[in-house]
């Protein structure tokens, strides 16, 4: 088996595993469908925006939950945004923790919120690493002269 075919197979397997483990859902496929010759970097661009957005929101959430008197409406608004953007790129596990987080906000449950925040930070870190690995593999494949079939 030549190098390119091997790389293609590895990329496919890696991508499959991300779906199987629930890191990504079908929305990620939808994103890939929107990428073409006129928008060759579409997925990377949108996912990069997600990373920036998520990091900003996680910072805000940490700050909000450190306050003496927590503004739950503010916390909820930030979680709502994160839920939306993670859903839009197909980051399923992050989205799921956001849903749990929102429930804790509604109950004004501080402990629950803090726990959720930790969980989101973990899930976000995981999906970020996985997506960065995915993009790296794609780049290497293109560099070797291969392509990805969509």
């Amino acid at each position, binding site marked *: 088996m030549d190098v390119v075919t091997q790389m293609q197979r590895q990329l496919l397997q890696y991508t499959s595993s991300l779906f199987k483990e629930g890191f990504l859902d079908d929305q990620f496929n939808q994103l890939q469908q929107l990428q073409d010759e006129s928008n060759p970097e579409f997925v990377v661009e949108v996912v990069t925006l997600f990373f920036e957005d998520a990091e900003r929101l996680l910072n805000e959430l940490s700050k909000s939950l450190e306050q003496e008197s927590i503004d739950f409406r503010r916390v909820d608004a930030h979680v*709502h945004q994160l839920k939306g*953007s993670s859903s839009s790129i197909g980051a399923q596990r992050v989205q799921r923790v956001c849903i749990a987080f929102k429930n804790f906000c509604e109950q004004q449950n501080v402990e629950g919120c803090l726990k959720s925040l930790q969980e989101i930070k973990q899930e976000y870190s995981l999906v970020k690493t996985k997506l960065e690995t995915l993009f790296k593999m794609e780049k290497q494949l293109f560099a070797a002269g291969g392509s990805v079939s969509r």
Partner: protein
Amino acid sequence: MGLAAEAQFHVLAVDDSLIDRILIERLLKTSSFHVTAVDSGSKALKFLGLVEEEQRNEEPSFVSQKSHNQDIDVNLIITDYCMPEMTGYDLLRKIKESKSLKDIPVVIMSSENVPSRINRCLEEGAEEFFLKPVQQSDVNKLRPHLLKSKVKEVGEEDQVINLSRNDIKEILA
């Protein structure tokens, strides 16, 4: 006259989330729509020419098919529901209350599946309610709403032409 087939539809997209604006814009452009995306209801109203202090004393000398005080030709508005300051529902109401804008079809998008919310919007005149994340299959549902409003305009012209043809037939008979 074939106007409907050749003209490109102009969609105004409203969403406070940058990622969602980018997504909806890409989805719409893939369907060959011309897109303008704004991040708030107030910016949308401004774009549509519906500003509180707007003076409507300047009327163009020609009369276009649409209401004459509209410089911007928007064929459909698609808006997020949850937005700070002005929700998609508030925007929908303002559009339906406006003489010049009420005939523009409006579609609402929301990440939350709340039946009472959906019904409220549909009752207020929204054509469709899409659950986020919006997909290509949702965007494909837009064309009939756009064609409906185009046909209304063109239909009136066709009637006039048909009458003339019948008149001529009678004369020649």
